[in-house]
């Protein structure tokens, strides 16, 4: 009798659970509801991330006094990030600036884009979604679809979801994402596929001149997406497989710039 009662109770619990899972799936899949709940969560979440960051910094500086080795490692990490940033700057600044100025002069309009600097609250290593959470949102004039760049011109993604004081950035390198790009010095037009964590793959026609170290640019804005790291050529195949990645380690990005579109 008791066994039968227990089984009945368990079955009831499972039915309630199944209903809850279905309701949760509906909430997550139905855009307006998901958006409203996300908005609420992301109103408070940035404060939690900031608190964690501040706590971590305080703890690190406190322990740094006792552990010189640890503080050296942290300093080394900071310097590495700075080197990454400078490398990204160096690679594109000189060439692109000249090119942009020439083009703008030719078209008779000197352009300046409006940029918002934002800190990264949570990076792509935190989730398998390949997203960044940044601390700038609608209040800063950002809109969904605005491009996000690192170190001035290395483009990394675009705003996917927008909240009042925070936004989610979908990285161009997200799995399955496809974008038009120009590869190498010959600016070969092609489609880049995201492979996660700042890695991409692109196929160019056989005979195209692409070498390791070539730049891959996004159309509209001459923004660098990455640098060719490997070129795989097979004579049987009609194309060359080019693997490229961002010029910096995406996991180490601490601040970005959002290019606010003029509307």
């Amino acid at each position, binding site marked *: 009798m008791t066994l039968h009662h227990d089984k009945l109770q368990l079955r009831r619990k499972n039915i309630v659970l199944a209903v809850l899972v279905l309701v*949760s799936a509906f*909430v997550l*899949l139905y*855009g307006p509801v998901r958006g409203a709940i996300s908005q609420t969560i992301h109103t408070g*979440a940035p404060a939690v991330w900031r608190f964690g960051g501040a706590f971590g910094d305080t703890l690190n500086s406190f322990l740094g006094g006792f552990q010189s080795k640890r503080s050296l490692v942290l300093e080394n990490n900071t310097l590495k990030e700075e080197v990454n940033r400078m490398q990204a700057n160096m690679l594109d600044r000189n060439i692109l600036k000249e090119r942009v100025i020439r083009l703008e002069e030719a078209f008779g309009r000197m352009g300046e884009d409006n940029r918002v600097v934002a800190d990264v609250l949570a990076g792509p*290593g935190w989730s398998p979604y390949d*997203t960044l959470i940044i601390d700038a949102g609608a209040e800063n004039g950002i809109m969904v679809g605005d491009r996000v760049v690192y170190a001035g011109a290395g483009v990394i993604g675009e705003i*996917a979801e927008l909240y009042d004081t925070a936004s*989610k950035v979908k990285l161009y390198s*997200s799995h399955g994402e496809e974008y038009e790009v120009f590869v190498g010095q010959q600016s070969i037009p092609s489609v880049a596929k995201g492979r996660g964590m700042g890695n991409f793959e692109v196929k160019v026609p056989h005979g195209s001149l692409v070498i390791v170290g070539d730049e891959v640019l996004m159309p509209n804005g001459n923004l660098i997406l990455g640098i060719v790291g490997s070129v795989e050529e097979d004579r049987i195949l009609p194309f060359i497989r080019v693997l490229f990645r961002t010029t910096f380690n995406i996991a180490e990005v601490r601040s970005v710039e959002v290019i606010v579109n003029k509307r």
Partner: protein
Amino acid sequence: MLTKRIIFGLILIGTIFYAPWWAVFILAILGAFHFPRYYEVFAFGILFDFLYGITGSIFFGFGIIGLIVSCLIFFGIERAKREIR
């Protein structure tokens, strides 16, 4: 047991905010294994999707990886526990 469960839940929430996804995954499995019928894992999965998820992304673009994984953990571990007993 309830106090332990609440403290573990708070640790798991902290992990969602401050640690990589694989740490959340391991802790969720430990929680589902240690506590009887660990329903909280669904709430954590949903929170994970709201915090980091975007639609039009990986896994057919539904943005419900957290919910799917929490279902797999819950039912998988419950089954494993039944088999072990």
